[in-house]
């Protein structure tokens, strides 16, 4: 382990869908301030891991603890986990398409700026002040992640290209000042130029002091952003280490390229 303290400690995280073991006991530690890449073939359990960590999917076993909190994250609801400072993006973008860019980013600022239903009715000034604060934070996050979009915050998301939607998702995750960000395939479907832009965005977010877990298939991208990489296959962690280490790891090569003679075995 590196010298810096472990922020997120995952032990034996498991999830079965009927007979399918999507996650078969994963151990993973995320250090404060690091960018940890998670790679693996399709169906290896990467997104399931994120869904477990954010409470979207109920775990079958294991524990996940934050450095300063005793609770097992796997027992909490998504909104409770969010309160602990964990934000995420989604592989299949989840935005309100009919809403403006700003409105979507504001969803991420909900935690700090919410008011009660009574306050909305009885103290509209307080509520308006909170809303103004939220808008300021959202605009700041937009300028930070997507300066080009910050000039047109009223554009409707449904009219924007795919790469911009990805950036809006990033901004929505950043605006709540999380400690940990889970970023699921940020460069999927992007051209090489956009991919390198997104890589820069993620490095800038990391430079703010956020710890990041990032799933991605593009190796060049992962090599650029991640300081350490974990490789999953069939719900298990098969390798962990620097890009150079996992690039030559025989298990990793086998899972991506197949073992020598496998196709002959399959043909028989």
């Amino acid at each position: 382990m590196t010298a810096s303290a472990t922020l997120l400690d995952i032990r034996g995280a498991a999830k079965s869908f009927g007979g399918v073991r999507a996650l078969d006991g994963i151990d993973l530690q995320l250090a404060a301030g690091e960018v940890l890449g998670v790679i693996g073939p399709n169906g290896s359990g990467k997104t399931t891991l994120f869904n477990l960590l954010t409470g979207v999917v109920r775990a079958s076993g294991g524990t996940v603890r934050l450095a300063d909190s005793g609770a097992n994250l796997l027992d909490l609801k998504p909104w409770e986990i969010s309160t602990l400072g964990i934000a995420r993006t989604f592989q299949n973008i989840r935005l309100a398409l009919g809403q403006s860019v700003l409105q979507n980013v504001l969803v991420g600022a909900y935690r700090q700026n919410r008011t009660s239903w009574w306050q909305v009715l009885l103290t509209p000034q307080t509520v308006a002040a909170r809303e103004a604060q939220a808008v300021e934070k959202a605009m700041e996050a937009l300028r930070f992640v997507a300066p080009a979009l910050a000039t047109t915050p009223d554009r409707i998301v449904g009219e924007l290209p795919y790469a911009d939607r990805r950036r809006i998702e990033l901004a929505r995750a950043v605006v709540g000042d999380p400690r940990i960000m889970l970023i699921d395939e940020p460069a999927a479907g992007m051209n090489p130029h956009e991919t390198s832009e997104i890589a820069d965005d993620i490095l800038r977010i990391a430079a703010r002091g956020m710890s990041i877990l990032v799933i991605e298939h593009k190796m060049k991208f992962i090599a650029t952003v991640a300081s350490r990489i974990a490789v999953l296959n069939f719900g298990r962690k098969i390798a962990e280490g620097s890009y150079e280490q996992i690039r030559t790891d025989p298990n990793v090569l086998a899972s991506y390229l197949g073992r020598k003679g496998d196709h002959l075995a399959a043909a028989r």
Partner: protein
Amino acid sequence: MLRAGLVMLSILAGFALLALFLRKAEGMVLAAIVAGIFTIVALPASRNAAWRGLAILQAHPRAAVAACAIGAVLLPIFLHNDGYWIHVLSIAMIFAIMAIGLNVHLGEIGLVNLGYAGLFAVGAYASTLLSQAGAPFWLATLFAMTVCWTTGGLLGFFSVRTSGDYFALVTLGFGLIVQQLIINLTWLTQGNNGITNIPAVSMLGHTSKMPIDLGIVRLVPETNFFYLCLVALCGSLVLARHYQKVWIGRMWTALRQDAIGVSCFGLDVPRFKILTVAFGSMFAGLAGSLFAHEIGFISPDDFTLLHSVEVLASVILGGIGNLFGVTVGAIILSVAPEKLRFLGDYRLLMYGAMLVVLLIYRPLGLLPDPRRRFESF
């Protein structure tokens, strides 16, 4: 400035024409007017002109709203003090308040509520019982709203795990349960006989049974409720709009489009859904209280599944999610059956056909909600 004046004048003229239409258009004249409206919608040139007109209206929102308010206040005079039509419009406004409430369920968070008449009934009976015990109208109304808020909260609590078709079924059951309870709890509701002699609304010595004497004109007693309903409708619109504009409205839209997405950003989805269902149900309390006191008689027949469906239809026809749209939709659907009386037995057939044709040509309603452009409903 000149344009704003023209906008106001044309809206006022619109109200006068509406009054003329309500009172005079019958038989062939009515058919000709409806055919004319359909022609305008069908011909591209006239449709574009209509859109340009609407755009001018939208460019002067304050003038438009002010003119609408003045027009609505003057409507009883435009209607030549015709008690029948003033009464019909009051009921239409009560339906509009229900449509605004149901729109919170259906339009904001996408829950199809087939039992809204059940909530309406709870409001009407709660208000009536308190009113008969001697409470003033405003207190009975507040009580009805509180009871409906609580009932809606309970309905939300028991149905929060469901959505889509399943929520519709739960609410369908709720509507039927309420109706059966009203029929069978005779000690409280007098069952199928209904409750008669609901006291008139009185304020500072003026009761809703007295005409309004303005010196120049003497407005018929029905006008009392017309203005009461108008105030309640405006209040409902302002309230619903107020909640739409803050974080609650933003989370409504985000939740409707993606519950998992918002839950990962700290929104306690079940709790928020329950509070939203309760909030939308509160409007049924207001509508129920107005309805009971205006008619002076309520029975289980006033709160059937058909009434739930009628409110649902006005929301869908007017434009799901658009407050102004659902108000217009509810008023059209309440007035249309009255205007179609000349058709005799074919009245409901025409009513249904009108709905079908409208929804074929305007699937998102008469005045669609711009937030829904990228949704498929």
